[in-house]
C-alpha cells in the first residue's frame, strides 16, 4: 500500500509557486501609495484567511462523506482539513492583527466585519478538538465530530452575512464580485500568492493524512508480528486513530 501518492510532485510545485509568489511580492508588485511596505503583508494575510475559511467548509464537505458512507477514512480527512485550517486561521489572525496595527493603529478593530466574522468562526472551530477529546468511544467520536463539522461548515457563510449587515465597511474591499480596484500587477501577485498558499494547504493536508495512515499501518503490523502486548497504548488523543 502506498501512502501519499503524488506528494513529491505536489511538494515541488508548492515550493516553486511560493518562491515565485514571494519574488513577485518583493520585487514586482508596486509599493502601496498610502501604506507603503507594510501593505505587502496583504499578500500573505488574505490568502491565509481565505484558505482557512475554505478549509473549514472543505472539512464539512468531507464530513458529509463520512456520514453517508460510514467509512472512517473520511473522518480522518475531515479532521486533518479542520486541523490545518485552524493553523492557517491562527496565522491569518496574527498577520491581520499586525496589518491592522500598522494601517489603523490598533491591534484589533471591532468596526471591521470581516475581522469579526473570522474571529467568530475561529471561536467556533476552536471547540472542534475539545469536543473530540471528550468523547471516548472512537466510533461515536468520529460521528459526532462529523455532525459538528457539517453544522459549523454551513455556519461560515451565514455568519459572514449577519456580521456584515451589522457593521459598515472599513476593510479595504479588494475582492469584490465586480473585480475590485487592484491594479493589474498587484492582482497578479495576489492571485499567485493565493494559489501558493492553497497549494501549501493541500500539501500539508496530504502529508498529515499520509503520516497518520502510515503510523496506523505500522501499529497494525507491529501488533500482528509482536503480539498485542508489545505496543504501548497510545495516549488519548483527539485525532482519529
Amino acid at each position, binding site marked *: 500500500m502506498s501512502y501519499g501518492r503524488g506528494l513529491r510532485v505536489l511538494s515541488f510545485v508548492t515550493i516553486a509557486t511560493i518562491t515565485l509568489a514571494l519574488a513577485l511580492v518583493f520585487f514586482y508588485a508596486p509599493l502601496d501609495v498610502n501604506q507603503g511596505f507594510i501593505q505587502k503583508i496583504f499578500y500573505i494575510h488574505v490568502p491565509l484567511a481565505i484558505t482557512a475559511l475554505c478549509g473549514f467548509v472543505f472539512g464539512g464537505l468531507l464530513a458529509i462523506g463520512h456520514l453517508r458512507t460510514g467509512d472512517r477514512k473520511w473522518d480522518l480527512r475531515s479532521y486533518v482539513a479542520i486541523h490545518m485550517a485552524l493553523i492557517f486561521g491562527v496565522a491569518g489572525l496574527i498577520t491581520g492583527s499586525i496589518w491592522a496595527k500598522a494601517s489603523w493603529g490598533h491591534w484589533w478593530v471591532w468596526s471591521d466585519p470581516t475581522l469579526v466574522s473570522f474571529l467568530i468562526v475561529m471561536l467556533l472551530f476552536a471547540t472542534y478538538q475539545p469536543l473530540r477529546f471528550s468523547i471516548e468511544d472512537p466510533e461515536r467520536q468520529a460521528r459526532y465530530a462529523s455532525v459538528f463539522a457539517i453544522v459549523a461548515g454551513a455556519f461560515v457563510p451565514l455568519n459572514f*452575512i449577519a456580521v456584515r*449587515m451589522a457593521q459598515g465597511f472599513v476593510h479595504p474591499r479588494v475582492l469584490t464580485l465586480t473585480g475590485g480596484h487592484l491594479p493589474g500587477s498587484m492582482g497578479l501577485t495576489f492571485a499567485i500568492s493565493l494559489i501558493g498558499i492553497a497549494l501549501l494547504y493541500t500539501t500539508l493536508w496530504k502529508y498529515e493524512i499520509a503520516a497518520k495512515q502510515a503510523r496506523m499501518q505500522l501499529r497494525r503490523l507491529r501488533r500482528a508480528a509482536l503480539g498485542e502486548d508489545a505496543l504501548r497504548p497510545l495516549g488519548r488523543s483527539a485525532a482519529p486513530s
Partner: protein
Amino acid sequence: MRPVLAVLRKDLRLELRTFETLPAMVLFSVSTFVIFHFALARSTISGQLAAGVLTVTLLFAALLGSGRLFVAEREQGGFDAFLLAPVDRTSLLLAKAAAMFLFLAVLEVVAVPAFALLLLGPSLGPRLPGLIAVLALADLALAVIGTLVSAIAIHTRARDMISPIIGLPLLLPALIATARAAAVVLAPHAAGTPPGRWLLILALYDVVFALLSYAVFDFLLED
C-alpha cells in the same frame, strides 16, 4: 406527528411534576437583572443597552435550560427506549425543540415584565407586540441550537462545558440580529416596530439551522 406529541407531553408532564428547569431559569434571569443593575450602576436602561441586557440574560437562561434537556433520557435509559421504538428518530429533535421553545416562552412571560419593572426605562406596553415578534424568532433559534448542542454534548465527558462553548459562537449571528432588532424596539422615542431586515436575518437563521439540525440529528442517536 404522534411520537413528537407523546415525547413533548412526557417532557411537559415531567416538568410540571418536578419543577426542575423552569423555576431555575426564571430565578436565574431575575438575579441576572439585579446583577446588571449593580454592574452597570444604572436604575433604568433603554435602547441598545436594554436590548443587550435582555438578550444576554435570556441566552444564558436558555443555555441553563438546554443543559437539562436530555438528562432524564441519559440517566434513565430513555435513549435506548426511544431507539427501540419504531418511530422516526428526528421526532425526538422536534419534541425537544418544541419543549425548549415552550420553556423559553413561559420564561419570557415572567422575565420580560420583571425586566420592565426592574430596569427598563421606556414603558413596555406599546413596545410589546414588536418585542414579542423579535423574541419569538430568537426563541426558535435558541430552541433549535440548544437542542442540537445539548444532544451533541450529552454523550461527552465534559458536557457542562462542551455545550456552552459550542453553542455561544453558533448562536452569535442570531444574537446579533436579536440585540439589534430589540434595540430599535426598546429605544426611548420610537414607535416600537422592529426593523424588517433583522427579523429577516433571524428567520433565515432559524430556517437554515432547523433544516440542518433535522438533517444531521439521526446520526447523534445511532448506536
